[in-house]
């Protein structure tokens, strides 16, 4: 009989494992990003482009998260970069323990850079810290310019926003300036890149930013 005062974070278990991951990545000298967007915005395409530019100079690896299939991991494998696929079987986001377990299975020496491609979803992954250095949120010009306003939690937590499919601007009713304005109204500190994985526009700038953040060179 009575009331127990609890005051516990519901996602504390995830936060604890995420903190362990972060400490481990730091100790390994690894720079880590958590790549987030709606399905189809171009996460895997951006990872491919990034690999093409960086793989000669940077030891990198990729963790792919999808609801089903290892299709994305196979795309990365073709480029000769170590990759692990996490299949969530319906789960709408990656959790820190999944990253922890799959990282153990990555066979890679002297890693400098790890990309975690999250499950395509602008809602749930915002709540789950994976232990990354920063969240990078991708929006493509085919999604309209209001996404930062509709999914603020994701944009509050991100350090970088990439506006992808910039090559399609002439064909869609979407203004990159408006995406930027909306995103900055949610998070004034966002670093912003505009890219096209088709023409390669903006990819060098993006990779330059990654380079400047590596811990070990």
């Amino acid at each position, binding site marked *: *009989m*009575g*009331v*127990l*005062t*609890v*005051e*516990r*974070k*519901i*996602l504390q*278990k995830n936060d604890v494992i995420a903190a362990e991951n972060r400490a481990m990545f730091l100790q390994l000298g690894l720079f880590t990003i958590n790549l987030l967007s709606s399905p189809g915005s171009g996460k895997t395409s951006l990872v491919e482009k990034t690999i093409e530019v960086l793989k000669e100079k940077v030891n990198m690896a990729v963790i792919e998260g999808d609801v089903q299939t290892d299709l994305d991991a196979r795309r990365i494998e073709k480029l000769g970069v170590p990759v692990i696929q996490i299949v969530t079987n319906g*789960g*709408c*986001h990656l959790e820190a323990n999944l990253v922890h377990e799959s990282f153990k299975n990555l066979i890679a020496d002297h890693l400098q850079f790890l990309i975690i491609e999250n499950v395509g*979803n602008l*809602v*749930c992954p*915002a*709540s789950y810290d994976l232990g990354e250095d920063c969240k990078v949120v991708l929006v493509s010009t085919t999604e309209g310019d209001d996404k930062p*306003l509709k999914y*603020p*939690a994701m944009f*509050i937590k991100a350090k970088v926003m990439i506006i992808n499919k910039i090559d399609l601007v002439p064909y869609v009713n979407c203004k990159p300036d408006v995406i930027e304005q909306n995103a*900055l*109204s*949610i*998070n*004034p500190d966002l670093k912003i890149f505009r890219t096209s994985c088709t023409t390669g526009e903006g990819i060098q700038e993006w990779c330059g930013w990654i380079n400047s953040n590596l811990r070990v060179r």
Partner: protein
Amino acid sequence: MHELSIAQEIIGIVDQYVAEDKSSVTKIRLKIGKLSNVVVDSLIFCFDAIKSDSNLQNAELVVDEVPIAIKCNTCNSIEEVSNFAAYCPNCNGTDTVMISGSELNVTEIEID
């Protein structure tokens, strides 16, 4: 969409506080911020669907929803807003901090 896994986490927390007879738990009180990306109705639905597996059949979730509030360091006002923005609704200043709205906590467990 992740309300089922949130419901499982809640049950895991209750487990740590109530070791014996969990059927005596009547209420689990939560604090859920408007920006926490949890759909309350869906969370209650998921919890009700799985609670009896953990002997929590007599427990109900009671949710205190927390509004988004922004504190402005320029004019010192605290404003509740329905849509989050990083500027002050009072003076338009951008030196602001969100002081509530992202909560996702179990606050109390009531036992009969």
